[in-house]
């Protein structure tokens, strides 16, 4: 008999409101289990699940689980359950699964609350795209939005887009359409659609989801005419005398990066006060045919000192974090039905079998 290969173990602590966990793995497991180290055998605590597991012969999203009721006896009894959703889903980020599109009924162009009666399978932090939103075609299509809040089967909030709207992004309210969950590529840094660009001595560029850029990195833009600020396009080709000099001087330098819970932006060393204001085209204009306004990585640069536009860090250096990197991983997503209860310390183990055979008895 050949043993399982032990892939590894991981721990996590559930927040007060548990969320799905993504466990990075080096191989696709054939057996994964999660144990609750906090509530295991605690008689006064009802917890479900305290143990959940998945085998590779089971469908994605399914699980087997054990829960324990509150008890006062000498021992703790457990009860078994199973399900087909909210369990374990293995994800190869290089070749991620695709998801069906789900109908939406409204998109608020200011708060970016997307109304939908079906939020199954969504978690905060997931990325979605909007498809063919009536009245808001300019935010439909290939843009990916990150979810910052979910009201179950009522709405999802695209908080990064809402922050861009607070800064100046103007999008009319949309009505019907679809959302679709998407696993974005992990080849970073990547090109991102621009949500909004301020007119400032150090322009702030907003995005619809968390951005991969790092201080010191050089970025360039392609801003089609309908978006206004075309002066920011193709900076790499524009002459300049150096990285901390007159504006523009080649590709823009990232001075600082914000990736908070609801704001994704970078501050660049380009003075855009005299540039045409950035604006999203209207829904009708976009439907007439436009390319997106995008920000793309343009190289490594000298890291600035604490966001300064003129002073390099001392000693000066370039930022290797901005190198192109394929960060795709094997991920085991543990859904809410298997992730454990609030505030519990959880332990994950994963194993891989040398072979998995289905035996059919004659």
């Amino acid at each position, binding site marked *: 008999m050949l043993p399982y290969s032990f892939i590894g173990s991981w721990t996590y602590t559930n927040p007060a409101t548990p969320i799905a966990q993504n466990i990075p793995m080096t191989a696709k497991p054939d057996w994964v289990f999660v144990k609750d180290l906090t509530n295991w055998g605690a008689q006064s605590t009802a917890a479900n699940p305290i143990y959940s597991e998945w085998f590779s012969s089971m469908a994605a999203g399914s699980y087997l689980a054990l829960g324990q009721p509150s008890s006062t006896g000498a021992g703790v009894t457990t009860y078994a359950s199973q399900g087909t959703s909210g369990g374990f889903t293995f994800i190869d980020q290089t070749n991620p699964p695709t998801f069906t*599109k789900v109908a939406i009924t409204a998109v608020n162009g200011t708060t970016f609350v997307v109304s939908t009666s079906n939020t199954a399978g969504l978690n905060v932090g997931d990325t979605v795209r909007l498809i063919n939103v009536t009245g808001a075609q300019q935010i439909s299509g290939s843009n990916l939005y990150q979810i910052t809040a979910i009201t179950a089967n009522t709405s999802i909030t695209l908080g990064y887009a809402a922050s861009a709207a607070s800064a100046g992004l103007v999008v009319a309210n949309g009505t019907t359409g679809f959302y*679709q969950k998407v696993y974005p590529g992990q080849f970073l840094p990547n090109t991102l659609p621009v949500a909004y660009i301020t007119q400032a001595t150090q322009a702030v560029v907003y995005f619809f989801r968390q951005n991969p850029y790092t201080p010191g990195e050089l970025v360039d833009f392609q801003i089609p005419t309908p978006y206004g600020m075309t002066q920011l396009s193709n900076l790499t080709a524009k002459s300049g005398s150096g990285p901390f000099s007159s504006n523009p001087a080649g590709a823009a330098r990232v001075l600082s990066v914000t990736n908070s819970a609801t704001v994704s932006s970078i501050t660049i060393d380009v003075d855009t006060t005299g540039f045409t204001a950035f604006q999203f085209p209207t829904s009708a204009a976009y*439907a007439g045919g436009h390319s997106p306004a995008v920000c793309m990585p343009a190289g490594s640069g000298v890291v600035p000192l604490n966001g300064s536009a003129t002073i390099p860090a001392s000693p000066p250096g370039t930022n290797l974090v901005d190198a192109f990197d394929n960060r795709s991983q094997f991920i085991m997503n543990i859904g809410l039905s298997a992730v454990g209860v609030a505030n519990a310390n959880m332990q994950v183990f994963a194993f891989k079998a040398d072979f998995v055979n289905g035996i059919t008895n004659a």
Partner: protein
Amino acid sequence: MAIAAFRKNIRCQLRSNDSFFRKEIGCPHLHHDSAMLLFYPKIWINSCKKFIKRFACDIGFINLSAMEMFSFFRNNFIPVMNSKEFFKPIHDRNINRSKFQDGAMDNRENTCFSFNSVDVKAAIAVYVASKISKIQFFIHNVYSFTIVYIEKEIKSTLNDLGEWNSERNMRKSDLATKAQEGDPKRFPRSQHVVSHKSNSLPVLNSAAARLGQSLRETQDALQRDNLESSASIINCVGGNNGDIPTEMTISDVDDVFTVLQNNSGEYITNIVEAELRFGTSPIGDAYGCMLTTRMIPVLYNMTGFIKKFQYPNISQTLSVEIGGANNVRFFASEQGSVTPNASLLGNDIANCFVSAKEAYKVVWQAGGKARFIYLPPGYNNDPCMLRHTAGCSFYQGQCITNDLWIQNLRSTGI
């Protein structure tokens, strides 16, 4: 290559026992004298030392100067010896490198040592022997050298492989010997060639071929993913399918061509001039567009698209080339980039990378190129020696050299 050069009269016996030397050679009437071995410099010095040590043990007595000479030739000042310097001025004038055939003793540096010997009985480890392509014995008489080849140049049994195994961390079962016909003039008898089993296992060879394919496709896929994630984006808008982006049209091709021209992108291919051939059209200086084969119907329906077989001259084309339109030539692959459901209406988008010269590159790191890794049974939790494993590895870095010279022209209609 190792050469044993025996000066004057010599009698040399090389036993087969646990050695790859098989045949006694030399003339019975000859007596012992000094001999000299030269090692091709690609043999590691430790291998040379073991070789000499083994030789010395079997000989029974040896000129002490041999080891000293060896050390001398390997010392810090003269790490290795030039064969020409060694032979001609120091020793018999009849011995010079011109006497050695096959260019064995050319100007390459060699390591040598000499000794007095009687009945040389050498057992030489196969791992050393494996580095010796040919053994030549030169027997010297008054007038000239006579070249005698041992009849079985490399003869080894699996028992001989013990040392080789221990050196390479492999087992006897990893190796195989195979009889091969020798050169009828020089090696009239068959010779046994020691090789790794992986060379002769059809299944493994098949796996190796598939791994090679996988490896190269992975390399392509990495660069594809890099361009997909990081290149600038232009939507096709000239079509009429009601989607954003639309299907590709000639106006979109011209648009991206204009963008690259505005960005000082250099052409990749030169003009294919018109010729007096029916049904052909010239192709302009062009940028290259790499796209998915799913785009072929879109291209064939595009006004102004010239299929490859309509080129005036196809001598400068690739097999994957589909055709050209104005100043862009299209190269299709089934591994081409597609983003599912990403259009305005939720249709698949083809990412068509239009590239100017030197827009992107691959960075190789030393030692990081393709590596095929074969492990015979018994490795990695295989105590019963049931399974072979084969794998390949490499690492490479992707780089866009100028973000303005590569454009992702996105199209639907696929």
